């Protein structure tokens, strides 16, 4: 069962997501989007995924918000008369289609913590890492053992992607230095 805290959190995330989509003023959208990210971080922590929660809080709520604020701080802000974006019909049709697909998918998921979830009913893969990760690597956090050990090559790819993102930003902006030298 979902607790009252979970329902309240879900309502908060839903409300901030709707506000992000519908508000017209960009500054308000960024602030509400930061609140949404914070809500999602709490949600991940609520679902017992602290590693994901920390990433969402640092990158989603912190860094992304600052980068967006920095971007609009130097652009012109339209003084729009209306507070709420008027939804346009094609977008609503696409949204409705995606919603049907999403609801169709999510309702097929096993319940949270269910014994019938694939992670329990086919325990060969999951249990292997839980049983062997400490023996193999002497690292207590199985997530770290998988990321840096068993799936180290994938992590190397991700690290290179982050590095490439920094380099390509320099290329797009036509600069050669990050800071003033």
């Amino acid at each position, binding site marked *: 069962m979902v607790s009252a805290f979970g329902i309240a959190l879900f309502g908060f995330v839903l409300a901030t997501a709707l506000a992000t989509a519908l508000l017209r003023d960009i500054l308000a959208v960024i602030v509400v989007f930061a609140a949404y990210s914070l809500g999602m971080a709490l949600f991940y922590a609520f679902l017992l995924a602290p590693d994901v929660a920390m990433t969402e809080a640092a990158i989603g709520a912190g*860094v992304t918000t600052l980068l967006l604020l*920095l971007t609009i701080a130097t652009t012109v802000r339209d003084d729009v008369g209306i507070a709420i974006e008027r939804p346009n019909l094609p977008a609503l049709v696409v949204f409705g289609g995606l919603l049907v697909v999403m609801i169709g998918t999510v309702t097929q998921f096993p319940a949270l913590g269910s014994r019938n979830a694939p992670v329990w009913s086919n325990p060969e893969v999951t249990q292997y890492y839980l049983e062997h990760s400490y023996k193999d690597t002497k*690292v207590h*956090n199985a997530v770290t053992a998988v990321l840096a050990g068993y799936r180290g090559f994938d992590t190397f790819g991700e*690290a290179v992607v982050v590095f490439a993102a*920094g380099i390509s930003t320099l290329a797009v902006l036509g600069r050669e230095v990050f800071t003033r030298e």
Partner: protein
Amino acid sequence: MSDRQPNEKPVVRGADGSESAYVESQVIMSTVRVIAPFSLTYGLFLLFHGADSPGGSFQGGAIIGATVLMIAFAFGIEPTRNWLRNRTVVVLAAGGTAMFALVGLIPMAYGANFLEHPFYHEQFGIKTKWGLEAIEVLGVAPIVAGVVSGLFFVIAAGSLPATEEVSEDD
């Protein structure tokens, strides 16, 4: 260590009369001055303790990078940008990638597989754990911290007036 230089002259950037997005706020500056040491420590804790508790290099590196952004937002982007050398950012990002590749390539040089951590134990007697720690502490975290803070300053610089772009001789 965080509030050493940037708070000397918080309003340097607006002094040339150009339109500046920076507003000096006592509330924000005091808050960041209190919070920054804690968030930096927390980032370092996640980084160095990530092998035995939730967290790890990506989260730790992101929080360390976010601390730099927080200081820049409170005390002005320009003073922080002048305080943080370009060399530091590049060494963090490129050096992290190189260290990660190096940890992976050394076993290959001896005929083992890429990133084969147990090889370090067999060949040099280095525990497998230290191979993972090396990737986390020397590889991923510097890349994330460097790129996060670098992206912030390069976007800020991209929006500065064109007259300040004289330093492209690097």
